[in-house]
């Protein structure tokens, strides 16, 4: 579903080089030290950054020169996933129509998505008036109405407590199963990767150093660099 071939990107003095393949319907976690290039990897796939060279394909289409909104991708960030001055409903509605041109069917679609993520009661609230977990649900609901086959998560639940994080991961897992989404999730919490992902990519010093099945990643037999990071 997602292919990166010899993708090079320069960030200040660091030359990054990514090769990665993610299968359709796969839930892959991305783990690695701070500054290793995890978020850059997602930004390249989402189209927020353009590689110097190499090729990124999503659903077998070359993404070179394709602007972010025309890629089959939704992304959820760690912060600022919503516009603070717009209410919850409008924030989700922007996922369908940026001019807020909405017929009855689309409105129902938005209501359904809010229902699905448990925000139905908060439609008219502003993002500043709801909790951190609820804020991230706005982004999930918007991804639902956008209905893109790839979902990129950039540490979206880092600021939440363990129980809430588990709850959000369950929501994401359920949605993945329903829609057969392909998910790439950057996380700093190994237990989240262990809980939700089927494979884990280890990013180190601007490279995808290893991609392992989750069990193998957390086993004692994993490469020494991974064990050093996890310890």
């Amino acid at each position, binding site marked *: 579903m997602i292919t990166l071939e010899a993708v090079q990107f320069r960030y200040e003095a660091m030359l990054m080089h990514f090769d990665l393949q993610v299968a359709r319907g796969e839930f892959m976690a991305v783990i690695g030290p701070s500054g290793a290039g995890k978020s850059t990897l997602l*930004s390249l796939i*989402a*189209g*927020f*950054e353009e590689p110097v060279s190499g090729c990124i394909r999503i659903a077998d289409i070359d993404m070179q020169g394709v*602007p*972010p*909104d*025309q890629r089959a*991708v*939704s*992304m959820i*960030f760690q*912060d*600022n*996933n919503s*516009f*603070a*001055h*717009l209410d919850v409903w409008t924030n989700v509605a*922007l*996922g369908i129509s*940026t*001019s807020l041109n909405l017929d009855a069917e689309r409105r129902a679609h938005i209501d359904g998505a809010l229902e699905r993520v448990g925000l139905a009661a908060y439609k008219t609230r502003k993002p*500043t008036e709801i909790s951190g977990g609820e804020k991230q649900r706005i982004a999930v609901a918007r991804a639902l109405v*956008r209905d893109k086959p790839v979902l990129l998560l950039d540490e979206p639940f880092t600021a939440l407590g363990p129980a809430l994080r588990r709850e959000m991961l369950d929501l994401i897992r359920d949605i993945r199963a329903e829609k057969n989404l392909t998910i790439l999730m950057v996380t700093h919490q190994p237990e989240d990767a262990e809980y939700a992902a089927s494979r884990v990519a280890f990013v180190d010093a601007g490279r995808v150093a290893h991609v392992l099945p989750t069990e193998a990643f957390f086993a004692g037999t994993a490469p020494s660099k991974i064990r050093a990071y996890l310890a």
Partner: protein
Amino acid sequence: MSYRDIRIGTALGLILIAVACGFLPLLWLGLAYGFSGFDAYLPRVAGFTLKQAFFSTFLSLGLALPVALAFARRQFAGRNALLKLFSIPLALPAIVAILGILGVYGNNGKFGGLFPVYGLTGILLAHVFFNMPLAARLMLTRLETIPAENFRLGAQLGFTRAQVFRYIEWPQLAPAVIGIASLIFLLCTASFAVVLVLGGGPQATTLEVAIYQSLRSDFDPARAALLALAQLVTCGILILIAGQFAKEVQVFPRSLAHVKRYDGESVYAKMLDYAALGVATFIILPPLCNVVATGVTRIEFDSSLLRATLTSFGIGICSGSIGLLLGWVLADGAGPRSGKRLRAAITLACLASLIMPPAVLATGWFVTLSRFVDVSSFAVALVIILNALMALPFVWSALHPALVENAQRNDTLCASLGLKGFARLRLIDFPVLRKPLLLAFLMAVIVSLGDLSAISLFGSDSLVTLPSLIMRQMGHYRMDAAAGTAMVLTTFCFVLITLAQSWSREQ
């Protein structure tokens, strides 16, 4: 009562006395004479004051908006240099800029005859010259606090340029725009030098200048009082309105990296952005070039220039020191430890010179003092005090954030160690605050160096500063000498502002 309370009380008391001496005699005179001095003149002047302030504000903001958006969106070679150019009018004494504008658009200028430079058009041009860059910079500061994710989200959702403005940029600007507009409206309402030189006769004069003329040319304190009351009411209402609209401004943690933008890639969008920057540059650059080009070769190193320089610096250093001291005590008093009321009172005290523009305060002082003493023998002191009050808003804005941060960072530790009084000042406050203090002092000196209103109201043949020397030389049609003096004044201001900027960057 602690030493700190006494300190704050004294500073507040001094400002209250200064304001009361300015206000009460006006009220008394106004009540005594009633509307006897009221004729067609006052409404006409008041009307023109508001009219020019309205159009100045409208034009400044209207041009500043596309300029700020362009600066926020674009990275281009020379961006920093252009931003620096935009900061020059903020430090340039009004009289110097006016000289530059006259040099370019006046009868003998390169673009002379394009439009009448005396009257409303000239006043508007000068006000836009000063306030458009100010508004653009204030707006840019707001735009730079927009988190990168907002633009990424916009790119992912496929926002058009207009939608980026509607959903991302405008909501960030909106809470600040009314504040910026009322600040500029206030500055233009109280504008003195611009209207004094470029205004023409009773058709194009403002309250501030009319007060000066009543006091200095017509020797009619009663009329000055009436005009001053009108000015006070206007500014008071403005501040009230501005306060009503000043919403709680949302602040995001500022990101250090440059925020990458995805909008405005079309040729049309680029053309619009660069056109806005081009027009703005064309307003700012020619008068500046004119000042330098005509000034450099015409400096007359004579005794009057030397005396004016020494007088300017003497007054500047005195008023800067007083302004710094008052501002430090007050900004410290408005820290997080103080109550809401005290903080409100202190903010109001620091803005006194905006609510009561110099001519209003000066009229009151003049009326008060002239009953007991010969005002001219106190002229230097009055100019210094007035300049210090005029500098307070700037001292405040330079010091207050630094003091709040210092208090938040060090108060608890200092309290637990029992570090207070002079020991704390020497070990903690002074080393930490050295740079903001210097910055505040320099800004106060710059305000004083460029001041023309206080010196016009109280100055005399024996009390001449650089700006009033320029006025005198212009009055005698010695435009070359005026250009030379303007160059000297500009150089001083420039050196000071460069020092101030390099210090504030290091913070």
